[in-house]
C-alpha cells in the first residue's frame, strides 16, 4: 500500500523542515570562528545526515504500525545487545570507528547506540502498554522481575519484562558508559509514556519517589521532610500495604546509598552538578561552560550580535558550540528574537505531535508518538535549560540543531512514525471529537 502524499500531515513536515533548516544554519555559523577548526565544514556532514534522516523518515512513513509493532521486540533486543557490546568494546580493546570519532571530539556521551535505543525503548514501552487492558494500577504491574518470585516476581499472564526494566536496562547500560544525561532520558520516556497510558499520577509519584529521595538525601533535613511527605502521601493514596512498605524501604535505601552513589560518579559528573549549583566556584574549569554560555546568550540582547558574528563563538570562548551548546550560538547571534522563534518552532512541534498522538487510531500508535514527543521534549528542555543554567549540564543534544548523525536519525525516524500515524488516522476518517 502506497500512501498518497497529499494526505500527509503538512504542519509536521513544515515545522520539522523549518527546524532542520534553522539547525543547519546555526551549525554552519557555529563553524565560522576566527581560529578555523574542523567544525568549519561540519555542516556539510550534517547535510548528509539530514538527507539520510529524510530517507529514514520516508522509510518509517512507509512502514505500517502493525509491521512496526511486530518488529518492536527485535529492535529492542538488538538495541540492548548493541549497548552491551558498546559497553564492552568501549571498556575493552577499542571502540567502533564512529564512537572513536565521538570520543576524539571531546564529547563524553557515547551516542550512536544510545540514541537509537531511545527510540527502541519508546516502541517497546508502547507495545507493552498497548497490550494492557487497563492502565497499570499498582506498582506490581510496573515493577516485577521476569521470573516467578514471591511479591516481586512476574504476575501470571504478564509480559516477560516490566516497563521499569524495559527502560531501566538501556538506562543502566548507558549510565555505565557513562552518560548520565541519556540514561535520565530513558527515565523521562518511561514516565511520559506511563502517563499517556493512563497511569494515575499518584502511582507515578510513588514510582519516582526513590529518585527524589536519592536527590534529597544530600541534605538530611530535606530528606527527612521528604520521608514525612511520603508517609502522608501513602496514607492519603492508600496503596497496597506491601507496595507502600516497598516504597518506604526504597526511599530509606536511597538515603543510605546516596553518598556511595555520589562517590561512584565520575569526577566530571560531580563537577557538573556542583557547577550547576554555583558556576563561579571554579570559573576556569568546571563553571567555564555555563559561564561562557550565559555570557554568549546574555550579550546577544534582543536582536543578537548578527548571524555569523557572535564574538563568544568566533573567539572560541563558547565550548562545544556545535553540539551541546549550539543553542548559545542562537542566543548570541540572533538574540532573544531568535530564541523565541526557535522555542516557538519547538512548541509547535510538540503540540503537533501531541495532537497526532491524541488522534491516533490505536493505542500502540498513540503511545509511540507520545513517546517520541516525550523524548524530543526532554532533549529540548534539558539542552536549552542548561545553556542558561536552569538545569545542570548534561551531554544530550538539541534535536535538529546539534551535530551528530545518530540522534538526528532517531529524531527523523520518530517523525516518520508520527507522520505515518497521522496519515493512518486521516485515512480512517478520524475526526476530532
Amino acid at each position, binding site marked *: 500500500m502506497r500512501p498518497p502524499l497529499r494526505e500527509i500531515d503538512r504542519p509536521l513536515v513544515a515545522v520539522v523542515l523549518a527546524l532542520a533548516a534553522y539547525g543547519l544554519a546555526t551549525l554552519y555559523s557555529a563553524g565560522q570562528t576566527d*581560529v578555523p577548526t574542523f567544525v568549519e565544514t561540519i555542516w556539510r556532514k550534517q547535510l548528509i545526515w539530514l538527507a539520510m534522516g529524510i530517507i529514514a523518515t520516508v522509510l518509517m512513513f512507509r512502514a505500517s504500525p502493525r509491521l512496526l509493532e511486530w518488529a518492536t521486540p527485535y529492535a529492542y533486543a538488538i538495541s540492548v545487545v548493541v549497548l552491551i557490546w558498546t559497553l564492552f568494546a568501549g571498556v575493552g580493546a577499542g571502540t567502533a570507528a564512529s564512537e572513536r570519532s565521538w570520543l576524539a571530539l571531546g564529547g563524553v556521551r557515547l551516542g550512536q547506540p544510545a540514541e537509537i535505543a531511545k527510540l527502541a525503548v519508546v516502541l517497546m514501552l508502547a507495545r507493552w502498554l498497548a497490550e494492557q487492558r487497563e492502565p497499570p494500577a499498582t506498582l506490581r504491574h510496573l515493577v516485577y522481575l521476569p521470573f516467578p518470585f514471591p511479591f516481586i516476581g512476574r504476575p501470571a499472564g504478564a509480559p516477560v519484562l516490566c516497563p521499569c526494566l524495559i527502560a531501566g536496562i538501556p538506562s543502566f547500560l548507558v549510565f555505565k558508559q557513562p552518560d548520565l544525561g541519556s540514561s535520565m532520558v530513558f527515565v523521562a520516556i518511561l514516565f511520559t509514556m506511563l502517563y499517556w497510558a493512563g497511569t494515575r499520577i499518584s502511582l507515578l509519584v510513588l514510582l519516582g519517589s526513590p529518585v527524589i529521595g536519592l536527590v534529597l538525601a544530600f541534605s538530611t533535613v530535606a530528606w527527612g521532610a521528604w520521608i514525612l511527605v511520603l508517609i502522608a502521601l501513602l496514607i492519603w493514596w492508600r496503596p497496597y500495604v506491601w507496595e507502600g512498605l516497598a516504597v518506604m524501604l526504597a526511599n530509606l535505601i536511597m538515603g543510605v546509598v546516596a553518598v556511595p552513589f555520589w562517590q561512584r560518579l565520575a569526577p566530571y559528573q560531580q563537577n557538573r552538578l556542583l557547577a550547576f549549583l554555583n558556576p563561579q566556584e571554579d570559573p576556569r574549569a568546571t563553571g567555564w561552560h555555563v559561564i561562557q554560555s550565559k*555570557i554568549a*546568550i*546574555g550579550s546577544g540582547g534582543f536582536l543578537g550580535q548578527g548571524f555569523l558574528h557572535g564574538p563568544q563563538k*568566533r573567539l*572560541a570562548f563558547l565550548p562545544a558550540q556545535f553540539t551541546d551548546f549550539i543553542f548559545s550560538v542562537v542566543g548570541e547571534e540572533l538574540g532573544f528574537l531568535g*530564541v523565541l522563534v526557535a522555542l516557538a518552532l519547538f512548541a509547535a512541534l510538540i503540540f503537533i505531535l501531541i495532537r497526532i498522538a491524541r488522534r491516533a487510531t490505536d493505542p500502540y500508535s*498513540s503511545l509511540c508518538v507520545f513517546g517520541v514527543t516525550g523524548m524530543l521534549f526532554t532533549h529540548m528542555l534539558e539542552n536549552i535549560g542548561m545553556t*542558561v543554567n536552569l538545569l545542570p549540564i548534561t551531554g544530550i543534544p538539541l534535536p535538529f540543531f546539534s551535530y551528530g548523525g545518530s540522534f538526528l536519525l532517531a529524531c527523523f525516524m520518530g517523525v516518520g512514525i508520527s507522520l505515518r500515524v497521522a496519515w493512518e488516522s486521516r485515512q480512517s476518517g478520524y475526526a476530532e471529537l
Partner: protein
Amino acid sequence: MSSFHPHLLDRRVRLARGVVWGALATLVIVFFRTQILEHSAFQLQSETNRLRPIPLPAPRGIITDRNGKILAENVTGYTVSLLPAADEDSLRATLHRLAPIVKLDSQAIARVLVRYRRTPYLPIAVLPSATFDVVSALEERRLLFPGLLIQAEPKRYYPDSGLASHLVGYVGELTEAERSQQRVAAVRLGGLLGKDGLEREYDDSLRGYDGVRFVEVSALGHVVREAPPASRLAPVPGKPLHTTIDLDLQHYIAQIFPAGHRGAVLAMNPNTGEILALYSAPGFDPNAFVGGVDPEYWRRLNESEAHPLFDRTIKGRYPPGSTWKLAVAAMALKRGIVTLHSHMPIPCRGGLQYGNRFFRCWSGAGHGDLSLADAIAQSCDVYFYQLGLKLGLTSLLEDATALGFRSPTRIDLPDEKTGLFPGGTDYYDRVYGPRRWTSAVTLNLAIGQGENAQTLVNMVRFYQMLASDGRARAPYLVRPAPGPEATLGLTPDQLTGLRQAMISVVERGTARGAARFGGSIAIAGKTGTAQNPHGPAHGWFIGFAPADKPEIVVGAIVEFAREGPFVAPLVTRVIGRYLGVDTTVASNVRIVLPTDTAPHPMQLLPGPPAEDTTIPPLDTGVTPPPPPPVDTGHAAPAPGNR
C-alpha cells in the same frame, strides 16, 4: 481500551499541554532575564572576555639645549610583549617556546613572570627593543605564541650618550618601590619614568599621558584583530624641555677633560644662574638603560671604582681648599674687619705659631708682609690664619651659614647634596667634648680645610656672587628655584677689589676671537687643593671672565689632580671657548698662576675626629646604588665604547 477513550485522552492532552506551556514559559522568562534584563552586564563580560587593553606609551618630551640642539629625543623601536595568559603555567610554556628566538635565559623568564604577577592584566614586555630580524622571525611563527604582541613604540634616544649623561639622566621602568611614592602615582607599573637627572626632575611634564588601544583575543589567547578604533585613546606626548645648556660648550668640555680622570666641570652664567654646562666624569651611556638595562652593564657601573653613575657636580663633596679663602675674605670685608689694603700683624715667614703648634704656609719661604688683595693673589695661608682669628670662629660659622654653605643651591636636579660645614660651636662640643677643643680649629677653617666639604655647584654659586653684583642666583637648567637668595653684602668697590685680586690668569687669544675683548681676556679665578687621605690631592679651579664684567663662571674639580693649578688650563680653555677665543693653540695661551699647594692640615687633636677634617668625597658622597631594574635587557648596546 477504556484508558484510550477520547474523553480520557483529552484530559491527558490538557495536562500535557499545560506542562509544555509551563516549561516553555519558564524558558522564555529565563531567556528574557538573561538577554534583556541582564544584557548590559553580560555584554560587558563578553567584552572583558575578549578585549585586552594595550597601553600606547606616550613619547617623552624632547630635551634641547639653549640653541635647540637635541639632548634627548625619541626613535621608534619594536617591543615584543605577551598578553597575559589564563594562568602562569601556559605563560611559562609560551616563554620557553619563545626563548630560543628572543634569547631568554631562565633568569629573564623568571623576571618576566615576576612582572606578570605584578600586573596580570597588562601585556608583559618580553623584549623591550627587538631588532627587525627577531620581529620577522616571531611573525613567521605567530601561531606558536598565543598572546604575542609586537608594537612599535617610541624609545628614548640620547644622541650624545655619555657626554651629558648626568645632566640628562636616564629612564627606566617604574618599580614597586617607586609606585608607593605619591610622585609617580599616575604611572602604571611597567611604565617609563625618569630615574635621574632632568629626566627625573621634570618627569611630570616630560612623561605625557599613555594612550590605550584594545585588541580582541581568542579563548586561546591569540590576538585576532584590532578592536574598533572608537575605543582607542591616543597618547598625549610629553612637553618638550628647553634647557639653558650650551651643548657646544658641553661637547668641548667632554673633549678636553683629561682622559681617564674623575672630576666635574660646571659652567654658569653669573648674572642669571643659568647653567651652561654640567659635566661629570666618568659618564655612562644612558641609552643602555632604555628598555631595561643589561644586568652585566648595571653590575659594572655599580662595581666600578670610579662610580660613573655618581654626579660629581652636585653630589660630590670635596674640601674647598684655597677656593675657600675668598669666602673668608668676603666675610671679613662685609663685617668691616679689614679692607682690601689691610695688613696682618704677623708677616708670612712660612708659617704661624699658634699656641703650642706651628701652622705652616704652603710656601715655606714665606710671602712677607701682604695686603688682603696680595694675600688672595698669592693665597697666603699665614695671612688667612690671622684673618680667621680676627673674624672669630662664631662669626665665621655664622657667615658661612648665611652664605649658603650649609644649604643646597636648589639646582633643578634630583638628589643634590648639601655642603658640610659646622653650624655652630656646639658642633665641636659634640664631636670633641666641651672645652676639649681650642679656637685653633679656626685656623684650619680659614684656609678651607677642617670640617668643610662643599659640592662643586655650591662653590660655583659662591663665585657667581663674586662675579655678579654680590647677589646669589639659584643655579638652574630649566627654571630657577624661587625663594630668597643669599647676598655677599659687599659694596661694588669691595667686589671690584676682590675680582682684581683674583685676576691671576691672563689669556691672550688670537686676534680673531679675542678682538671683542681687545685681544685679551682677564680671567679672575682661584685655585684650590683639597687634601685627600686616599691619595693625591684633588685640584680645584673656579674662575670667571671677563674679570671686569663677567659673563661666565666655570668651576672644575679633578680628583687626584695633585694640585689646583693643574686644573686651571681646563677652566681657562672652557672660558675661552665660550667667549670665542681660539684656545686650541697652546702658544696663544699664557697663564700666570701662583703655585698653590695647600699645606697639610694641622692635626689638632689625636683620635678619630681628625679624620673628619678631610672628607673623602667618594665615601661620604656616593649614594647607595638604586635597586637594579628588573628588566630583561637584551638589546642594551655594549656600553663604554665611546
